[in-house]
């Protein structure tokens, strides 16, 4: 079961190994191949970082969070909410699932879930509401299997508005949870 600790590249290794074995052999040996097959070198490289070779540093591997690499859901970091609501709308589930998948594949990564509210109403209730919005995103990720240690839900309430002014557009922009990775 050590494969489980390999993260994204370990999973890829299994997929590759199974695919190869599927081509070469019939099903009766597949289980043994999982246990016995060493991780193929091509995917092992990023996991076992050679200390004596900086060029092989993990960061050299393409990171799907990097917008130069992909332009998919992982580049979207904001989950927006309706007024005074903390229910995650269905349209944001694919985005949250994409980040869930990334965190599952990168157990060394951690994410901050930063809850925000618009400026109307009480400072303290908004602090609590921002927290609940952040918790709502966190709970979806936790349910998806992300470990508690990788997630931190916190609230800025109405204190860190991205959009200024008392307009509907500004308020809507500020009712938001930002997904921010700890090393960014």
């Amino acid at each position, binding site marked *: 079961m050590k494969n489980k600790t390999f993260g994204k590249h370990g999973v890829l290794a299994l997929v590759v190994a199974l695919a190869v074995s599927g081509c070469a052999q019939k099903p009766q040996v597949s289980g043994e191949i999982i246990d016995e097959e060493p991780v193929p070198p091509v995917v092992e490289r990023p996991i076992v970082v050679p200390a004596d070779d900086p060029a092989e540093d993990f960061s050299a591997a393409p990171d799907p969070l990097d917008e130069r690499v992909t332009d998919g859901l992982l580049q979207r970091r904001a989950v927006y909410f309706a007024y005074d609501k903390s229910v995650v709308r269905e349209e944001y589930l694919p985005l949250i699932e994409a980040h869930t998948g990334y965190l599952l594949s990168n157990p060394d990564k951690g994410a901050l879930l930063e809850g925000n509210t618009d400026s109307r*109403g009480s400072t*303290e*209730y908004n602090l609590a509401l921002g*927290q609940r919005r952040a918790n709502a995103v966190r709970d979806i990720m936790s349910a998806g299997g992300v470990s508690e240690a990788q997630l931190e839900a916190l609230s800025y309430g109405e204190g860190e508005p991205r959009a200024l002014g008392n307009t509907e557009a500004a308020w809507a922009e500020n009712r938001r949870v930002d997904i921010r990775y700890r090393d960014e």
Partner: protein
Amino acid sequence: MLWRFRRGLGFLAAAVLVLPVAVVPPVSVRAADIRATSGEWRPIEIVVEPFGDGGFADIIADDLNRSGDFRAANRRTASFGKTNDADYAAVRAQGGEYLLVGQVRQNANGESTAAFQLADAITGAMLDDAPLNITFDSGARRLAAHSIGNWIVQKLSGKAGVFHTKVAYILHGAAGGKKVYKLQIADYDGHNAQTVLTSRARLISPAWSPDGNALLYVSFEHRKPVIYWQSLLDGSRRVIANFKGSNSAPAMSPNGRTIAAALTLHGGDQQIYLLDDNRRRRARQSAGINTEPDFSPDGGKLLMTSDEGGTPQIYQLELASGKARRLTFGTRYAVNARYSKDGALMAYVRRDDNRRNNISLMDIGGGAEVWLTDGGGADSPSFAANDTMIMFANENRPNRLHIVSINGKVLSGAGVAEKGAVADPEWSPISSDWF
């Protein structure tokens, strides 16, 4: 009778020595903006003579007008300066029931003395046989005038005056293009602001200790909300709550022994806990957000905001039984409730039918309530120590303190000297060891 006032009782010196405090010099602010509503209202009518010192009588008249119990006109009558043979017919012609005559004189030692006397304009009789005197140094001029206002309130309405009391608030300012948060204390009318704490990190939710000698507040200096206590006598401070998660919404019990606060100890919604010296206990078991606790004057109950029913509403929690009763209905947003000092009323922020936040005043026992504001944007009400007025913030006019009389008749603004937005104003108790 003689009163003697000097400003700066210990706090200024202590603050400068102990804290990195920038003491803001008194800066004159815009003239008071006081608006009385029309309609049925029988205030005590009083004419205030000019006192021969520009602005001195204005301070007294503004105080009286803000209270909602008086209508004070500061104007010169034909009798100016003649205490004993005032032209009461002229005063009555202005609607005056009472006349305050007075004079400020410079003394040889640089101090000043205000002599004053209150007359019944209907009968022409003086309420006291001889003029009263207040001697003050230049820094205590406003305090001397406020004291005359207090004396009149006591004399004519029987209530304790509160014009010498303070307000604590957070000023959201900027310096060098970056946000700066200041915990400030000012006279209730915005003058004489003093900075207790300056922070690049956000500050919220100041709350007075019942003796007026300390403040609780929440600072984000450690990147998350942590509750601090800070002495106003020597500037010392200590952490009250820095538990896992969020620590906010502090309130101190009337006996000063318990602090109620909203914590997220278990990673869920904010819940109210009671913190004693060695104990931490949850005030109530319920779903949803529970925050913004405020102790009743007898210490046995809390007002709080809870959204266990789906929308934030005000509940009253009996601490002994743990039973909570919902107090607000008919709105989808009711937050930030405060007890009156006698415990009979509460003021809170209620969303009206036009989706605007205004201050509502409720008789807790009977449930009847009235709107105190109608312009929207209102936030963070707190009562004056004699329950005659309520202070609040308004995001539509953020650079000032806002005051409404408890009868809803007088709405006034009190500008603060520094640029920035005023948030979370908290009216002080009636006295402390430093003011």
